[in-house]
Structures are given as C-alpha cells and as structure tokens.
C-alpha cells in the first residue's frame, strides 16, 4: 500500500517508568522530535517521525511512564486516555510499542498484559537487555513472545541494538492491524491487579533461563549514596559543585548576553532618531527580550545538573535522603532539589518540579519556590544593607551586615516551610500518595539524551515563558513612558507617566509600612525582575547607576533619604514580594492557567506587606 501523505500511522511508545523508554524514543526518532502539550494538563507530548524499513513514515509518540491503566497522576491519565483512544485531540494509535526493562520483568509485564488486553497491535521491546545480562539474567525472548502472544524484540536503546528488527516488526503489526478494524477499548480489564501481577510473575519465570542475585553494582553504590553519613556528605558535595557552577560558570555568559543586548540597544540608538518607536525598540523590546535571555546560561547549567542527576538514577536517592525533612512540612523528598535550585533562580526550580509525581506536592512546591532567596535579590540586598546597616562587628569575625544578609536568607526558608505547612492543610489539602517510588539502577547518562533534554528546556523557556515575559516588559515600558510630560515641564518623565500616577495613587497604602513615594515608584519597574529595583531607584533619584562610583553615590543618597526602619521594611518586602514576571509566567505555564499564579502573587504580596509592616513598626518601637 503506498504511503498516504498526511496520514502517517500513529504509534505509541508506552511502558513503566525506568524502562528506558525515552532513550528508546531518542534512538528511534533522532533529532526529528516535537515537544508540545496535551490540552488542559501540564504533561508534555513528545512526538517524532520514524522511517520503517520499507520507507513508510510513522508518527511515534512517547507516552509518560505508567505502572498501570488505573491512573494516579495526570501523566498516567494521559497514557491511559491515549492508548484507549479517549485523549482529547488524539486518535486511537495504530499500534503500541511496549517497552519493558529486561531485568525487571516481574513488574513490567503486568502493565504489558494490561496493554495487550486492549486489543491493539503490540510489539514488546525487551529493553536494556545488556544490563540484564550484566546482572546475571539469561532470558529467552522467543519464549516470552509465545507466552505473551505478541512479537518480542531484545533491544539496547543506548547502543542502538535491535532497532532495525523492532522497526521491521512494527511494520508487520501495523499491516496486520490495518486488516482488522480497530475499536477503542474502554481500558477496563477483566482481571484485577493482583491476578495480573501473578500471571506476570509466572510468565517472567517461564521466560527466564537462569538468574543470579540482583544488581550487586547498584547495591554497592547505594551503600555509600544512602549511607546515613557518607550519603549526606556526598549529596552536599554534589550540591556544592552545582551551585558553584551556576553562580560562577553562569555569571560570565549571562553578563556577555546582557552586554550583547546593551550593544544592540546602543546600535539602534545610534542609527535611529529619538522617537517613541526607538524607545519601544530599545527600552521595551530589546531590554525585555534581553532580560529573559540573560537567564538562559544559569537555567541551562542548572538543568544540565538536574538532567544528569535524574538520568544517572541519583535523583531518587537524594529525595530518599531528604524525605524526612521535607515530610515534616507536608512535602515529599522530591521537592528538595527544586526548592534548592530556587536559591539560584525560581524559574528552573519551578520547571524542575515536574519530577514530583504527586500533583498536590508539586503545586505546593511551586507555590513556595519563590520564597527561596534567588540570586536576583542579592544586588538589592547588597545595596540597601551596605547603605543603611552599620558595618560593625557583633562578635569577632561576625559582622552585622553579614548577619542581616544571613537573616534574610533564613527568613525566606522559614517562610517557605511555614507556608508549605499551612497550604498543605488548606488549599492543597488531600491524601498524598506519600513517598513511594522505584529506585532505578545507576546508569551513565548519554550525552545525546542530555543534549535533547537541554534543548527542550531551552525551547520551553524561550518560547513559552519568553513570550509572556517580553509582552509584560513592553507593558511596563509603556506604563513608565506615557504620557510624555509637556515640553519644559519641571516634572520628570517617570513621574509624569502612568507609573508615576499609579505610584501617587497607591502610595497611601504603603505609607503604613514605611515606604515613601520614591520606593513605591521604584517597585513598579522592579516587577519585571528584582535586580531592576537598583536601577529603578537610580532613575527615581536621578542617578546613573552604570559605574561603581555611582553605586557608592546611590548608597549615600539612600543613607541620606531613608530611615533605618524604612530600609528594614524594604528588605523584608524583597524577601517575600513576587517581584519577578518570569516566575509568574513560568508558574502560569506549569500550572496551566492563571488561577495558581494569581493565588501565588496574592499571598506573597500579602505576606510581604505584613512582614514589612511588622518589621517597620518593631524597628520604630525599638527606637532604631
């Protein structure tokens, strides 16, 4: 039959988590992949094109890993709906490639049996066959095929072994399936999970020629990685390296990108006469896009580590070690790495919550992530502390300024834990599936899989978050630029603009927490990103903050104009307030709607207001 253009057969790649499904998907489709989203959920749809030996093109979709057709997470629901033909916007697949881990047949065959019972054409990829052999397992794929009643191909995705045979079998079953009319199944299976499990174990036993004791290699590594003392030391050593890399290796490329955008802006300024259009291009679009792209190096470095930790199998071990601490505030050990990443930047932190299976755990983690003191707060903290906190020694080697800085970090962490505890009992209340997960074998991550993973993160960040961020930055630009003051007006452009008028309007609301109008005005552009507050204060006080000398001048100005209670209130505001469009945009993307980002912004502003007010009045009361 000649291939019909536009109607390539649809094949789903499906299997348990840790079956090596994504590696097989990457090996089968190469770089010809598309990452999208299923409607209404934050589950990624990975699809790619695959050429069969006879030249036909097949669309292959990599479904989220699942343990059964009874979904317990949004990911598993997509998998169930897809293979039963009930997923919105998808048709029933023409065939299934079921991926099983050759060294874990007992468990993976249960899901395979459920999938075979759906009645779709199935080929089983007996994956990671080499690791099973290394583990001392001898399997008989032909016998397994007889027992299951479907073709079975031994594969090693990472070494591209067995792929041609798999593609050939896939072609055959698609043809056989086309001969009979496929009907969507309702996904309910006559047998319950226990019966299926027992059948799976019998089949696994029949297909196993001989077996040696399990996974010595992984156990040996685990006795260090999960050790009460060495395990924690190893975890903190890994985290130390990760943060050093994010802060130091990420800083130069970020500066270079910022300098590149500044250069571009200067070129435009040189080439165009001063006009609203020029201002829109330079101060709006270039500055806005630059503010987004600048985060990319740090995000990529952070994700490089996260992907390596995930692919190597270490991430679950880190979660295991930290589960007790996280459980004390109602979160799971899985929340530890995303929250820690948020100390660098909440954006990759929130993006990495996808590794948390439980929806409520994940949502709580996203909502508290902005409370971790990110690197963008540092310039603000440094400026204000340097200007208004006396540089005295509390104890030998313990300076007051450093102590205040540490206090701000601790406030953030304590705040996050308290908020998580409260949320878990109120808005994100519900039975948690706790912490129960498979600990995969250790594996060497593949450069190719890492590269594809990084590419997809960069794409998501730039395309999806980037559009929202660029749009809101342009809106902020408009607020700060219009209307223009009349010629010769004594009022500065910023003060005359809509933002200046908003500041006039809302200033009375901020007076009780010690903020003057200048501060309120600076907070408006700082909604784009916290570090913008430094430049914004400069604009308000008409100081150019480009050089070090000017920063010193800035500190003097603040020292002269701000009282200590006001400065402390300002710092508290920055501990809690959601002054970051990127975080809000990413939260919208990761929670699929405006409801949760709106809630997050609301509670963080409320918290910031209360904390700043409390500190302001406490400081006044103490006569500071």
């Amino acid at each position, binding site marked *: 039959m000649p291939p019909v253009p536009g109607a390539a057969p649809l094949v789903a790649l499906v299997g348990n988590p840790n079956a090596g499904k994504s590696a097989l998907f990457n090996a089968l489709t190469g770089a010809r992949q598309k990452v999208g989203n299923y409607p209404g959920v934050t589950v990624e749809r990975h699809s790619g094109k695959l050429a069969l030996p006879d030249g036909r093109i097949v669309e292959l979709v990599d479904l989220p890993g699942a343990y*059964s057709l009874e979904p317990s997470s949004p990911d598993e629901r997509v998998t169930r709906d897809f293979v039963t033909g009930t997923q919105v916007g998808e048709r029933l697949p023409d065939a299934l490639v079921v991926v099983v881990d050759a060294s*874990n047949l007992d468990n993976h065959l249960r899901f395979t049996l459920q999938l075979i019972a759906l009645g779709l054409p199935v080929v089983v990829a007996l994956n990671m066959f080499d690791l099973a052999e290394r583990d001392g397992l001898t399997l008989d794929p032909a016998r397994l095929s007889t027992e299951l009643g479907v073709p079975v191909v031994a594969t090693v995705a990472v070494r591209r072994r067995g792929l041609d045979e798999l593609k050939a079998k896939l072609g055959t079953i698609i043809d056989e399936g086309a001969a009979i009319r496929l009907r969507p199944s309702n996904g309910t299976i006559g047998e319950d999970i226990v019966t299926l499990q027992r059948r799976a174990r019998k089949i696994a036993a029949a297909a196993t020629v001989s077996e040696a004791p*399990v996974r010595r290699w992984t156990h040996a590594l*685990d006795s260090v990685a999960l050790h009460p003392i060495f395990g924690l030391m190893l975890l903190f050593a890994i985290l130390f390296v990760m943060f050093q890399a994010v802060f130091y290796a990420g800083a130069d490329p970020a500066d270079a990108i910022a300098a590149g955008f500044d250069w571009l802006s200067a070129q435009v300024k040189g080439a165009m006469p001063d006009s609203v259009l020029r201002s829109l291009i330079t101060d709006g679009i270039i500055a806005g896009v630059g503010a987004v792209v600048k985060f990319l190096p740090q995000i990529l470095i952070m994700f490089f580590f996260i992907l390596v930790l995930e692919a190597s199998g270490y991430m679950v071990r880190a979660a*295991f070690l930290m589960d007790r601490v996280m459980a004390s505030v109602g979160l799971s050990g899985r929340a530890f790495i995303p929250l820690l990443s948020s100390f660098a930047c909440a954006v990759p932190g929130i993006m990495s919550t996808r590794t948390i299976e439980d929806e409520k755990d994940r949502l709580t983690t996203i909502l508290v992530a902005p409370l971790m003191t990110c690197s963008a707060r540092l310039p603000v903290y440094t400026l204000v502390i340097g200007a208004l906190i006396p540089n005295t020694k509390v104890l030998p080697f313990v300076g007051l300024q450093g102590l205040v800085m540490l206090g701000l970090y601790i406030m953030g962490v304590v705040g996050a834990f308290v908020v998580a505890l409260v949320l878990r009992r109120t808005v994100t209340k519900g*039975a948690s*599936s706790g912490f129960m997960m*498979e*600990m995969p074998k250790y594996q060497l991550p593949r450069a190719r899989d890492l590269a594809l993973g990084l590419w997809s993160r960069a794409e998501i960040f730039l395309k999806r978050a980037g559009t929202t961020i660029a749009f809101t930055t342009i809106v902020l630009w408009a607020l700060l630029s219009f209307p223009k003051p009349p010629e010769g007006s004594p009022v500065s452009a910023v003060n005359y603009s809509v933002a200046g008028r908003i500041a006039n309007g809302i200033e009375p609301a901020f007076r009780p927490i010690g903020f003057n109008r200048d501060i309120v005005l600076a907070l408006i552009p700082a909604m784009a990103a916290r570090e913008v507050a430094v430049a914004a204060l400069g604009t308000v006080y008409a100081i150019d903050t480009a050089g070090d000398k000017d920063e010193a001048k800035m500190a003097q100005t603040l020292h002269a104009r701000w009282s200590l209670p006001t400065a402390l209130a300002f710092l508290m505001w920055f501990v809690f307030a959601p002054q970051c469009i990127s975080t809000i945009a990413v939260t919208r993307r990761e929670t699929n709607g405006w409801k949760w980002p709106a809630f997050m912004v609301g509670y963080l502003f409320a918290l910031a207001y209360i904390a700043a007010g409390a500190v302001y009045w406490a400081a006044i009361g103490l006569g500071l």
Partner: protein
Amino acid sequence: MDMSNPVKTASSLPLLSLESLPQRQCATVSAIDWAHLSTPEARRLRELGFDEGVGVEVLHRASLGKGPIACRIGRMTVALRRAVAGAVLVSPVTR
C-alpha cells in the same frame, strides 16, 4: 527442624512488619494490612509488586530521624515511608 530443606520459613516466629525487619534479613511478604493504607498508597504498593509470597529485604534506612527505608522487592529496589512499611507483614526466611 528439617535440615534437608535449604530454605524454610520460620513459621514459629511471630510476623514482623517490614518496618521492623532487620537490615539484610531476607523475608517473604505474608500479608498486607490494606486498612492502614490510603487508596493511592495501596494502589502504588500493589503496582510496585508488593504481594503475598514475594521475597523482600530491607537494604537501607535513611539517616534523619525516622526517614524512609529502601527495600528490595522481587528484582526491584523501592523506597517507602515507614508508616507504609509498617503495614507490610513479613516472615523472615532462614537460609
């Protein structure tokens, strides 16, 4: 005791929970107290292969206070919290 059989269940011993099973002591699952588990917990436990008669062994215990435990079930390593492990009743196997 019949010494000709290399593997036997010490049926005279009272049942232990997986939580209190000594580390590296092989055992088989004899019963699971489903009433003490939430529905998602029970389902996940089933899906991870916990079932009567399956071999189980505690491999590691997390350090911080009463942290989770890592155990071998069949050919798989699974991490679970102690409260869940407490609902899995096991009988030690002597080799």
